[in-house]
């Protein structure tokens, strides 16, 4: 088995795929979004609950997808819950930049935590979307929650 493959399916990724954190849809929530990747049929339904000062109180989700997308959703939910939105934006921006760098931009573990384990996918252009889908869903849910809250 060649090396890039083990850099993709790291132990952390496989662990999150097998035992995803914060999975399942929960109440209460401010916004719910449903995203689909039409090329592979992967789907995620994501709910976001914001508290005072835009603190993320809960992110719950149901994800159908490959190991990368499921692990990404699990790692993301764990990174988001309990943190204010303004702290999350740099994490999300950094992950997206690293994912789109084709492996040139090393991930900052301080910012990404377990998320650095997802960066193996950056060298596989077809897999970048798998990792980013849950994050896109979070961004859309945030816009919706803010619109509804305004």
């Amino acid at each position: 088995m060649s090396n890039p493959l083990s850099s993709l399916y790291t132990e952390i990724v496989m662990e999150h795929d097998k035992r995803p954190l914060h999975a399942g849809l929960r109440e209460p929530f401010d916004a719910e979004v449903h995203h689909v990747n039409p090329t592979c049929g992967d789907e995620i339904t994501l709910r976001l609950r914001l508290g005072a000062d835009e603190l993320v109180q809960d992110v719950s989700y149901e994800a159908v997808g490959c190991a990368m997308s499921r692990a990404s959703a699990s790692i993301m939910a764990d990174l988001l819950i309990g943190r204010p939105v303004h702290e999350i934006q740099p994490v999300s921006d950094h992950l997206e930049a690293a994912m789109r760098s084709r492996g040139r931009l090393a991930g900052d573990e301080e910012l990404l935590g377990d998320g650095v384990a997802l960066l193996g996918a950056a060298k596989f252009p077809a897999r970048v979307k798998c990792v980013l889908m849950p994050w896109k869903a979070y961004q859309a849910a945030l816009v919706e929650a803010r619109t509804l809250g305004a």
Partner: protein
Amino acid sequence: MSTPRSPFDLEAIRADFPILERRLDPETPLIYLDGGATSQRPRQVIDAEVAFLTRDNAAVKRGAHRLASAATDAYEDARETIAAFLGAPSPDEVVITRSTTEALNLVAHSLGSGDETVPDHLRVRAGDEILVTEMEHHANLVPWQELARRTGATLRWIPVAEDFTLDLTDLDSLVTDRTRVIALTHQSNVLGTVTPVERLVEAARSVGALTVLDMAQSAPHMSVDVAALGVDFAAVSGHKMYGPTGIGILWGRYEHLAAMPPFLTGGSMIETVHMDRSTYAEPPARFEAGTPPISQAVGLAAACDYLTALGMDAVAAHEQELTRRALRGLTAIDGVRVIGPADGPERRGAVSFDLAGRHPHDVGQVLDSLGIEVRVGHHCAWPLHRRFGLHGTTRASFSVHTTPSEVDALIAGVARTIDFFGSLS
């Protein structure tokens, strides 16, 4: 040009495909099992296109210079070759399009033109019914959904049975006096199932409905004869039958084409043009607006010649043997569920499978690391996957250049994929 070979000389055929010499990395030869998505091209096709481009290239059917005339001859000669390959009674029944998708959309749009001067049997209107099947590629489903939406017609479909064939139990009630069109695939791109075209043609004729056959997956793999099949329209892809991308074929019975309004309009398809109105050319020109895919037509004709030289019956026998081998090997692996019929005469060389619920992207990724290139996902047949409770499958599809040892490598690769994820979980 290739010369007929006998028997099926796999080594010589492989030597015709330059890409097969490629290594994905120094240790990994290419095992290309994705001809169902797009086929690789033999040098005979590549050379024909290059020869045309370096000698005769010009716009067709316009201009009086020698190149224009040479290009027009090459284009019309290609049409004749393609017509003969498909069993079309006349080259005038062969419309050159940009893709199978465009060919199918052409029919759907023309039938829904709303033009009242068009004979009734070539019009779909409110209250009419369009019948498709649950195993269609999106290209032979979405255009009919849209036709139904535009006209107020009703879309119905023949379900797929548990054994992955069409369930014709309720055919008599699905085909009614209101049925105007039956559109179906000749061979499922996911299941490898060959559909009972004759039976459906008979059902369509009994109520005066048209039949539209998607042959994108059959024409490269078996001998086809549109006249003998008895359908009214058939669509074919260039790049799935060893020809170029950017070209598809619509075959239609001339009396239909001659009575149908155009789909795309513009240059080349007109008879006369005034500022406020135009009249249109006879078929096939009426349906070929704009500058057509000229070098692609030359390449596709070369692909037809290539397949004819191999002999389509020999091609079919070769690929059925590979299919049998793959089915035998894959079904013996614990955790593999093949999504397609068991081996049989109506079972062809697209072998899709689910691997213990493991996502097909993950399966394809491991196979790719072994040099085995397969298709993953819903293969543009989302409703069919949903029918079997799946989000996607992994599909291996076989070509004239596929060897038994490549099929064995696939089987071993699938077993290794299970080990890989088994060892990580």
